[in-house]
């Protein structure tokens, strides 16, 4: 067993323990705090899995905004949960057991963790990683004959940051070094647009549902 796996499993056990604590602790204030800690440890786990962007987002969202939101809500709803009738909900355990067993059954045919030959790494992702997905015909390059070769690669050795000699961008021939950003903003830019819309919707829902009415329309 490698050290990587050991660190991983250690963190994951901690996360699972924290998750159980969040669910089971009776004080909602405690649950909010534990949920923040849970998110921070989760961010740590994601760093060990090399998902730095996800870790960054989780730290900002889970430990930041969600906690603010929860504490704000607790001001309204009070900080304690009513004592449950039973400590353990058997019906829940049965449902969860069956679902979980089924999911585990599904993992048995999956490629091993970290297998470089897994389809998810070989089927379509190679060209995403190398940023060599050419555009379809019909782009602006073809209609402006003066541009040479523009349709071949999407990126060229210039960037908004400028062609300053100190700028490291040129070392990557103008490609975007952060692949996650490149996938997010270009190939899957359409999803990202709706991600922005979802955030906007969340803000508007908060305003629709929580804003006090002005005095003149009350």
């Amino acid at each position, binding site marked *: 067993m490698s050290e990587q796996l050991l660190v991983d499993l250690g963190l994951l056990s901690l996360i699972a323990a924290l998750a159980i604590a969040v669910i089971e602790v009776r004080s909602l204030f405690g649950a909010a705090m534990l949920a923040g800690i849970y998110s921070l440890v989760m961010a740590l786990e994601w760093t060990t899995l090399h998902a730095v962007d996800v870790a960054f987002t989780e730290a900002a969202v889970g430990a930041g905004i969600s906690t603010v939101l929860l504490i704000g809500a607790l001001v309204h709803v009070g900080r304690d949960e009513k004592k449950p009738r039973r400590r353990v909900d058997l019906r829940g355990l049965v449902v969860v057991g069956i679902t979980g067993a089924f999911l585990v059954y599904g993992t048995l045919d999956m490629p091993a963790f970290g297998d470089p030959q897994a389809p*998810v*790494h070989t089927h379509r992702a190679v060209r995403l990683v190398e940023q060599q997905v050419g555009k379809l015909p019909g782009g602006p390059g073809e209609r402006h004959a003066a541009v040479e070769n523009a349709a071949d690669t999407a990126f060229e050795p210039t960037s908004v940051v400028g062609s300053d000699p100190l700028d490291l961008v040129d070392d990557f021939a103008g490609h975007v070094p952060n692949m996650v950003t490149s996938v997010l903003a270009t190939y899957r830019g359409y999803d990202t647009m709706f991600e922005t819309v979802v955030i906007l919707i969340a803000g508007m829902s908060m305003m629709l549902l929580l804003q006090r009415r002005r005095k003149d329309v009350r």
Partner: protein
Amino acid sequence: MIDQAPVLLVVVPLLAGICCLFLRGQLLPWIWAQITTLAVLGIAIHLLFRVLNEGAVTYAMGNWPQEWGISYKIDAINIFVVLIVAFIGCVTTCYARQSIASEIPRDRHHQFYSMWLLALVGLLGITVTNDVFNIYVLLEVSSLTIYTLVAMGKTRDKRALTAAIRYVIIGSVGASFILVGIGYLLMVTGTLNLEDMARAIAALPEPERNRTVVVAFAFLFVGLSVKMALWPVHMWLPNAYGAAPSAVSALIAATATKVGIYMAVRFLFTVFGPDFTFLSLSTTVGQFTFSCSGILLTCACLGVLVTGIQAMQQRELKWILAYSSVGQIGYMVIGLALVNHAGLTGGIVHLLNHALIKGGLFMAAGCVVFRLGSQRLEDLAGLSKRMPITAAAILVGGLGLIGFPLTAGFISKWYLVSGAFEAGLWPVAAVLLTGSLFALIYVWRVVEVMYFTAPPENAVKVREAPLSMLICTWILVGGSVVLGIFAQPTVALAGHAAKQALTGHAQILGLPPVTTVPDPAVQEEVVP
């Protein structure tokens, strides 16, 4: 610009929905929303003619090849659903003006109509997209807006809030199940494009023995069932439909679950393929054989019967309609699960017919709420004298629910029953007829109160509902009658879509269809 129609279908309401937040007042946001929905309807009709003339229309976002980027593909199945959503969106927006003005505080209208348009964006986007993850994101766009729209019913009925939170929790669990299913599929296929995924699954050695694919299928199946409110997992639906603002009830009853059913058709028939879904995936345990089609038929039939009985026990008009919705969803699912051309045609044409009937009925219920301020059955007494046009709309719509001849409901029932006979499933046909009987009973309860009970002595004198609301109600209810008499065009479109569903998977793989798929003209039996 004309090549851009597929993306304009989504981008026009998106831009309009965002810009709507800049408007103020009551009238302006509504006019804005009405113009937008009219434009969307225009684009949808344009696309219909393009699909009929040229076959499937594709569109690549950002000009990236579809295997790497996100693309749209509009074929005979989704153009049908797009038309339903665009048309209902247009009519309900027209209806919404006075109904919403009476139910929503007047300084919130711009936000409300913004949500309204974004809900349409989500529903239309799910329908035309060709990318699984895009489906998930747009599903959440539509769900989040609908949660909020339902919760806005709080000013009239505080049960809207509990209905909304239940919808949030159950709906999000359903969406998460879909996300798990997508993840399992991504694991074994490495792609997110629907067609690419279909090819990759078919290329696996024995996909039905691949445990990951089977579990992914099951989770998608459960998640989609939640979203389309199939019987055992429909718990979120009745209260959400009952307590939402009237215009919102009409909109979501006529579109949201229909889009859920469309997604099920897309996944079951296009991604996994009818052979995999309905033939390969059966296991025999002891003397029982479990197959996907069997499970779907069981859930749908039980749903029709159980919710029929529940609808009879309700005391409020919108709750009766809501429970009846779950039963009607059962009819559509029966159509899918029969896997023959007649059944599938019946199921798909029922998407439209039920959207018209139930949309019209919820609008009529909204008219009642608008004038009476209540929708409880006993308050409806003598409605035929007090609001004769609204009462007539409820009567005609109710006949459609029963499946009375000369209404659209009859056409769909006809195809469903003949599909059931074709598949040799007598019990299913019996359930379809029993469902109609139950519908007769719960519709009769309403009609009896409206027509054969004298209004109470102390009843407040009410006028008929405003003209704009009545016209919209009658457009839908009347439309259902017209489509019951002149059913040829819609049945032809639905038949086209059914054929596309049955043959689409083989087309993607570039194979001759393995299942014997009948020509719509010569209706043969499909080997299930």
